[in-house]
């Protein structure tokens, strides 16, 4: 049996996900399993199917992110078939024209299902904040005060930028990518929530608005990989005397930091 993996839209993009799976089914790829980043499809006959997403809304201390059994059986009694769950996203399917009713006649109720998703995104900031706070606290303890800690960190960053330009660039791009992804997810979820609260129903076929965003994210990832690749070899076998990377970036960095870096060879 032929299988295919594809990146699916983010969890917040309910309508885009629905359209994505519907279009894949029309081309003969039926959803088998939705994972965290990728969805797995199996080859089948092109079919006119409707896919719909229902978000789980577990409490803060609930261990499972599954839909309540009762909710799932109610949907199935109405003609929707449960396909797969990835995180909070539950995917249901029904043939086109089968008359299976849409989940929500009132958009305001669908807005409430976004609660757990919004909470997850908010909690996503926690690791970054904790790490930064920890670094600052440690620096302050070691170097007597937050001000001098920040100063020393800035100096070491400049040194690292010169000696390990590619690695610092890779890390910076990675961090930037993660933070922009988080922020973007939060903003999109908030916008969807407000639209639903205002009574505007979910658009199940919104069109391809995400192209630009995904292109930017892809570019950041590519840049990250491009910078990390040359560094990875040197990290595996560190030289006795650190040698800065060759090329225009190194020379510019040397000039920018006032010539305090070792000369390129």
């Amino acid at each position: 049996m032929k299988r295919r993996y594809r990146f699916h839209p983010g969890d917040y993009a309910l309508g885009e996900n629905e359209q994505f799976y519907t279009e894949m089914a029309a081309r003969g790829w039926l959803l088998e399993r939705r994972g965290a980043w990728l969805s797995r499809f199996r080859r089948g006959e092109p079919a006119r199917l409707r896919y719909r997403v229902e978000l789980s809304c577990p409490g803060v201390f609930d261990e499972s992110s599954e839909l309540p059994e009762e909710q799932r059986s109610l949907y199935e009694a109405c003609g929707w078939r449960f396909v797969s769950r990835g995180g909070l996203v539950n995917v249901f399917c029904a043939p086109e024209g089968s008359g299976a009713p849409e989940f929500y006649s009132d958009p305001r109720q669908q807005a409430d299902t976004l609660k757990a998703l919004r909470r997850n995104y908010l909690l996503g900031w926690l690791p970054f904040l904790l790490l930064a706070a920890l670094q600052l606290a440690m620096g302050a303890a070691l170097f007597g005060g937050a001000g001098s800690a920040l100063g020393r960190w800035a100096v070491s960053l400049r040194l690292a930028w010169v000696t390990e330009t590619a690695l610092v660039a890779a890390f910076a791009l990675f961090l930037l990518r993660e933070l922009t992804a988080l922020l973007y997810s939060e903003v999109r979820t908030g916008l969807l929530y407000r639209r639903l609260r205002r009574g505007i129903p979910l658009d199940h076929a919104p069109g391809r608005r995400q192209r630009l965003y995904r292109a930017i994210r892809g570019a950041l990832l590519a840049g990250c990989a491009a910078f990390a690749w040359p560094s990875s070899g040197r990290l595996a076998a560190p030289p006795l005397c650190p040698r800065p990377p060759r090329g225009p970036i190194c020379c510019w960095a040397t000039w920018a930091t006032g010539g305090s870096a070792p000369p390129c060879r």
Partner: protein
Amino acid sequence: MAETQPMSEAMYYALLALTEPGHGYAVMQRVRALSGGRLKMGPGTLYGLLARMKKEGLIALTAEGARRKVYALTPAGRRALLGEYRRLKQMVEDGAGLEGYQ
């Protein structure tokens, strides 16, 4: 005991449907029948409504079948339903002068 805010139409019909104990899907079908096909609730809407009514103590589980849970009205639910019915009836009666109004 007075309900400070009027009940939504969906809730009124759901309570009306549950004068006969039933599970979720049966409630959905009864609501459609009772409203003459006018009110078609989505399963998500109904589930949210049932969960809220259970939390407010208007309905309760009677028996659990294999997978389906059977709901019935509680005394509080009955009072709420009758109260709403009387309120609506009063509203219609107060507007009786509208018959033939252009």
